[in-house]
């Protein structure tokens, strides 16, 4: 018998330790997942690599997902770690078209963490869950010694019910699909960064954190959706690259069609960051059958969370797996996963 086994992880390129880039949503994250977790956990539910697994239970299909929140600072313009933990997991469920049913919340608290701050986070979570109509149904609390965590970490999991006839997955995008984006990009990442680094930018930078399940329901009612993703870590750029790879399609996007709010654009410009690769927490990108694209876009714009929705490109048969971005001046470039964290440029 051959003792060759897939569960022996390949060495992660030249890295003997975890570096921050492994959590960035870029190439290092992808490497870690493909070389460490996938071979070890290998199963068809996981191997789809969507933001959620969809399980058949009896006659129903249940969407199931989990996500951890470690953001610094805990409170930032437009949100806080608690709202993020509720919205993020609801959104991961919603990207399968599922109606979220319930969430769990697990807290890792650092010894010495101020009770008042915990109160603020918990109140904010409660309000976000109520507003979304999704109960936090179970939970867990652990306390670790001072220094073993950074004040607080939250993990939320969620389950949802996928309506009959809905079949949404990154792998289902196909040539001809129109690509719709629900609004401006990079708001969340720049709001958190400006607060974290104490940068005083003119004009308000505010996180876009929001629960998107109702927007998704409106879209599903309006037309045929093939793929949905919320472009969080890694930004819109990484999401388009992932969908192109997963569905083996080419993507053509137009830089000028992608909305970026003015203060966000200015902050990115100043730091030499590309808004395409900055995180969002209340946006989605949809690959929609061409004949229903206009109806879906209208439905998005009728929802407050999709007011600035725009058609940003299309899926094509050519250059499968590659995302081509048409630049403002008529040139084109290929978008690729960022390596790790985006780094501010020197000058």
């Amino acid at each position, binding site marked *: 018998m051959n003792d060759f086994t897939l569960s022996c992880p390949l060495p992660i390129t030249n890295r003997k*330790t975890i570096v921050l880039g492994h959590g960035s949503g870029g190439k290092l994250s992808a490497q870690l997942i493909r070389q460490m977790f996938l071979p070890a956990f290998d199963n068809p539910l996981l191997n789809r690599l969507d933001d959620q697994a969809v399980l058949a239970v009896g006659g129903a299909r249940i969407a199931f997902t989990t996500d951890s929140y470690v953001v610094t600072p805990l409170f930032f313009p437009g949100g806080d770690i608690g709202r993020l933990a509720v919205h993020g997991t609801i959104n991961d469920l919603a990207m399968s078209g599922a109606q979220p049913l319930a969430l769990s919340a697990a807290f890792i608290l650092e010894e010495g963490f101020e009770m008042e701050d915990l109160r603020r986070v918990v109140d904010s979570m409660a309000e976000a869950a109520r507003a979304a109509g999704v109960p936090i149904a179970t939970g867990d609390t652990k306390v670790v010694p001072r220094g073993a965590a950074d004040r607080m970490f939250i993990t939320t999991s969620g389950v949802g019910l996928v309506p009959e006839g809905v079949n949404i997955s990154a792998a289902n995008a196909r040539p001809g699909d129109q690509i719709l984006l629900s609004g401006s990009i990079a708001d969340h990442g720049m709001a958190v960064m400006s607060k974290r680094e104490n940068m005083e930018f003119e004009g308000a930078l505010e996180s876009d954190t929001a629960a998107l399940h109702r927007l998704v329901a409106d879209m599903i009612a309006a037309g045929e959706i093939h793929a949905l993703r919320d472009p969080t870590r890694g930004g819109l750029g990484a999401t388009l690259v992932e969908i192109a790879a997963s569905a083996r399609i080419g993507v053509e996007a137009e830089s000028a069609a992608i909305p970026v709010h003015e203060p966000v654009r200015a902050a990115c410009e100043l730091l030499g960051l590309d808004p395409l690769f900055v995180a969002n927490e209340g946006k989605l990108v949809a690959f929609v059958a061409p004949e229903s694209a206009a109806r879906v876009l209208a439905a998005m714009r009728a929802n407050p969370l999709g007011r600035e929705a725009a058609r940003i490109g299309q899926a094509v048969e050519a250059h499968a797996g590659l995302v081509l971005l048409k630049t403002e001046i008529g040139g084109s*470039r290929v978008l690729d996963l960022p390596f790790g964290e985006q780094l501010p*440029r020197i000058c």
Partner: protein
Amino acid sequence: MKYVDEFRNHALARSLFAEIRRAVTRPWVIMEICGGQTHSIVKYGLDQLLPPEIELAHGPGCPVCVTSLDLIDRAHAIARRPDVIFCSFGDMLRVPGSAGDLFQIKALGGDVRVVYSPLDCLKVARANPDKRVVFFAIGFETTAPANAMSVWQARALGIANYSALVSHVTVPPAMVAILESPTNRVQAFLGAGHVCAVMGWEEYEPLASRYRVPIVVTGFEPVDLLEGILAAVRQLESGRCEVENRYARAVRREGNLDAKRMVFRVFEPCDRAWRGIGVIPGSGYRLREEFAAFDAARIFDVGDIVSQEPAECISGLVLQGARRPLDCPAFGTRCTPETPLGATMVSGEGACAAYYNYGRRLSQ
């Protein structure tokens, strides 16, 4: 966004492309000095839209790319010390030394921090009086005034636990080195707009006349670059070799006098080793003797460090415009942003990384 949108205007860019096509009658090699310009050219796909007669050679103006491996290893040795908080501009963190990068040092417990302004280091130094705060002061003339100011302020405010590891480089000596190289192909330069915003363009006038080479001070947006290229082509076609300013909204002939004064109060010129190129006489700044107490190179004894570059890397030739990233057999295979052999594959301003990130694997 004012001063940005009008310089990314599609119609204006199109008419400039047309003018360039009308002006050009034969092949020319034009070098953009600055990595920021390389980044824009490749990001917007300008080079794909220029007439085939014009070859853009990418210059040495990427500060993290030209910082010598010896100095990076020295910086890493300091950053590993438990009594040090090591501050750096962001894109220096991923530049490989002989053994890993600053990210790995951070992962193993080193206190490595990204700063946006060197003056932030002084705040860090004040907040951590029991630590020694070291700033990796790299860059061209553009970053020199702020870096100089941090040392000046540290002395004025008596912040004794701050020091700078200085590796400044300057543009004109590098242009001389390129022009005097026997393999030089560059016929005109797009001057680095931000460098000239500080230094002005007087010091380029003797170069233009001695080497009979047009030098056009150029900005960073697509329309800026096209205007610079058009001006360079017109000079080349008509046999002129002048210094011309096409970045008038930012650059004056004498530069920024206050900034220059601060630079020369704190720094003095010195010989400097450029990564992949070698020592260029008079091409750097170092701290003046009176600031020795703030000079990390003198404060920290990290022993003799002699570093060896990967033999396969041609970044030195790329930085001089003698070779292009796609000429390198390791490009995109053994050398990628994940596994860079040289710094030009790391920084967003490095020519190899710009080619890689913006998809030039396609055109191969």
